Structure formats: C-alpha cells, structure tokens
C-alpha cells in the first residue's frame, strides 16, 4: 500500500474480470438437459432441484430480486457488462445440489447444469467464461465430470457449493476431485449460501430468528470450515498445482483465520504432518479471495488495511451480480484508488483473476 502518485484511470478504461456472476436457472430450464428418470422427476416434482428454505430474501418486499439480467448471454452483456463495465464475467450456475441428500439425483443435476451452461451461455461472446459445477457427494462422479467437460475452451475453473458437504471438503474422500481438477488444469472456486446453512453446521443456525443473522454467518462460516479443512488435512500440499478461491464472503475473515491457524499449527504441528510451511504461506501462495460483499467499516479507510493484509495479489474483484448484496465496482475501486498503486489496482481488477482462471486476455 503506497501513496497514490499517478491519477488512476477511470473505471470504464480498466479491464475488469468479475469472478462471481450467477445464473438463476429455473427447474423448467433444466428439463431438456436431464436424462430419465430425472427428466420426468423434474417435470412432476413440486420440490424441484433446490427447494428454497422459507426465508424472505426481500425484507418484506423492500428489495427487488430481479434475475432478468442473467437469463441469457445477451442479458448479461447489457445488464452487467455494459452497465458496470465488466469485460470478462466468470459465470457460475449457482447450483446448490451439493447439499442434497440424494446422490444420484445430485449427480444428474450437476451434469444438467453444466450442459445448460455450455449450451446457452458460453458460445456467444468470447469474453464470457464459465466454471463447471461440481457436486461433492460422489467424488468419483465429480472427477469424471471434470474429465467430461473440463477441456471445453470456455471453462476456466470449477465451482463448488461448500455449504453443506459433510465431511468438510479437506477430508481425504474428496481427493479424487482435487486430483482431477489439478490434472485438468482447473482451479476451484468455493461459494457458500444461506440455503443449506439451514441444514448443516452447526445445528443452532436452524434457530436463528432473522435472515440477517443466517446470511451474515452462512458465507464466512462455510469458508472458514472449508479453508481450515483444506489446510489441516494437507490438501494444499497434496495438490501443489491447485489453487482455491473463496467467493462471496468478502475479505475481513481471512486475516483472523490465517493468523489463528498459524498459531495453532505451531502448537499442534504433528496433527498436520503433511504441511511443510506455515498455514499463512499456503494461503498466500494458493488461495484467492473475492472482494464482494465488500465490508463496510464505519471508518472506510480501515478496509484499506484489511485489503493490504490479505494482499493485493490475493484479492479478486467480484460483483455477485445479480444478487441482493451485489457490489457495484466502485465499492471496491474507491479503496483501490485511495490507497493502492495503479499496478496493484490492475492486479485486483483483472491480473489475479487472469492468473487464477488462466485467462488469455
């Protein structure tokens, strides 16, 4: 972090890679991509793929949930790219099937989501890149899916919904997934959700009385569990060519967890014997963190320090379009303009994502 010397370029002139753009796929949309018996199940079932959990995202109708902007590549182009100056949207399906109890059904949904993504969203504009959705209940099936679609040109990584998988994702049972991701040259982005938080980890979240509490905790807790598990189980050492990104929990949770892991690792090293360096070094070397939803300290400049600690070489710009807590690019950029060099700003807006997703900009 240094004093700004040159005047930063206006955001319209910056190349921006948005690490977190969601589709909003209805059950009906998936029907053509499912085989029997799942096709008929989807047609007839009232539950569908991802039954909602009963929470009111709209705050009694105060917030409008408008997903029209992600119904087609053309819609994404105008609602996100033109409106917010995003050049490269990294699109994930927001499939939540990794928390479903039925394994075969989840695997069928995983494949249908990927076929839909490839079929409808990635072959219109070269700048549109996608993450393949993986479900985790059957690791061998997820590894096969990586081999099936991982080499498609527009696929630049994998997306794992990490609220719900049990055991936590560093457990050795998942090693086939990470091995296949590494073999296919695809890094892995984790994304939690309040959906699923209702059913898992820890039980008490089922008794929170407001969605505010559920949503505040769902994302960072899911990531803290996943990150801790990946480190302590040594996944970062088993698959040194693999990198991980954590979407939609902002940044401030990272320094705390990183330093706490350092401390406990130094005391209990023999419980994590695969590790050859401090947790902090693995986190800095192999992990990225998406900016959205950018935290809002009362003293805005406090966040500059957080970004600085996490590292301008570890932060990915993301909007989370079109969800209700999405960030307009300026929410992050005002910090970057304020307190970081033009090079650091470019790293965050596009450079880190270019490395993580191996983009050819």
């Amino acid at each position, binding site marked *: 972090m240094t004093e700004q010397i040159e005047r930063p370029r206006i955001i319209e002139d910056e190349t921006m890679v948005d690490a977190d753009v969601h589709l909003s796929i209805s059950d009906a949309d998936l029907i053509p991509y499912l085989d029997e018996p799942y096709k008929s199940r989807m047609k007839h079932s009232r539950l569908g793929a991802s039954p909602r959990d009963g929470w009111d995202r709209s705050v009694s109708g105060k*917030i409008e949930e408008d997903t029209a902007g992600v119904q087609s590549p053309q819609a994404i182009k105008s609602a996100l790219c033109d409106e917010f100056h995003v050049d490269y949207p990294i699109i994930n399906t927001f499939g939540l099937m990794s928390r479903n109890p039925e394994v075969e059904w989840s695997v069928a949904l995983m494949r249908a989501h990927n076929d839909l993504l490839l079929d409808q969203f990635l072959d219109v504009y070269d700048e549109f890149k996608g993450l393949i959705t993986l479900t985790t209940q059957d690791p061998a099936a997820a590894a096969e899916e990586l081999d099936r679609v991982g080499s498609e040109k527009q696929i630049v990584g994998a997306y794992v919904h990490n609220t719900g998988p049990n055991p936590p994702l560093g457990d050795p049972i998942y090693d086939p997934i990470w091995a296949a991701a590494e073999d296919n040259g695809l890094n892995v982005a984790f994304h939690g959700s309040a959906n699923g938080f209702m059913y898992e980890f820890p039980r008490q979240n089922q008794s929170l009385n407001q969605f505010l509490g559920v949503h505040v905790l769902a994302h960072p807790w899911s990531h803290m569990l996943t990150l801790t598990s990946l480190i302590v189980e040594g996944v970062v050492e088993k698959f040194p060519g693999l990198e991980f990104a954590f979407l939609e929990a902002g940044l401030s949770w990272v320094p705390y967890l990183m330093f706490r892991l350092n401390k406990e690792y130094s005391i209990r090293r023999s419980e994590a014997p695969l590790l050859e360096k401090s947790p902090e070094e693995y986190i800095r070397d192999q992990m990225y963190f998406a900016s959205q939803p950018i935290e809002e300290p009362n003293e805005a400049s406090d966040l500059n320090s957080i970004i600085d600690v996490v590292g301008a070489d570890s932060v990915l710009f993301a909007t989370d379009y079109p969800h209700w807590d999405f960030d307009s690019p300026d*929410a992050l950029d005002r910090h970057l303009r304020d307190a970081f060099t033009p090079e650091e700003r470019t790293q965050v807006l596009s450079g880190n994502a270019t490395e993580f997703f191996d983009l050819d900009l």
Partner: protein
Amino acid sequence: MADEEHVVARESDIDDGERLIVDIKGRDVAIFNIDGEYHAYINWCAHQSGPCCEGRRTGTTDASFDRETLEQTLTYSREGEILNCPWHGWEYDIKTGECLSRSGVRLPSFPVQVDEGKIIVSF
C-alpha cells in the same frame, strides 16, 4: 451562482403517493408527492450510487422493548413514506431524506414550490 428554477411538471402529473423522475441539467431528480406535499431528491444512493428513487415505497418496522416485562413489541408504520433503494434496500424517509439504515446519512434534497399548478424545483 444562484439556483435556477425549473418547472418540472404540473400538479396533476404527480398524484398523491406517486413520483416523477426528471432530468435537470443532466442529473436525475425525483419528485415525490406525499399528501400533497412535494419532496425532491437526487436519484443517487449514498451507499453505492444506485438509483434509490426508483425503489419501492413501503412502510417500515420498528420495535420497542419493555425492560419490566421483557417484551418486545413490533410496529409497522409510515406506509408509503419509506423509499427502499432497489440495489440493496437502504431505507430513506421520503419526508426528510434521512436514511434509516445508516445514521447520519441523508439524501441531498432540492427546494420545491408550487405556483399556479406548476411544480418548480430549484437547483
């Protein structure tokens, strides 16, 4: 420089409970009618610059807590007087421009007068 007066509409153009968003010198300005009183604000949210004046109008929920009985009472009031930014739902009191979600924040407002049925905003 003294503010200029802009005739933005006729009274009949904005019914009670309605709003009108107009362009004044390149800026979006919203004029709200609440019970025959007009309020004009910039359509530019203090949070992340979203189009706050295009959001839904609702009331809002407040609560009081009785320390003796340990009871919390919820009330819903000010129906139609609360503007919710469509981007992330920050709440604004249309009568004062005050933000309910973040204390100390207020939407910049402009004086409005009515003259012979014409609504005039000074800017």
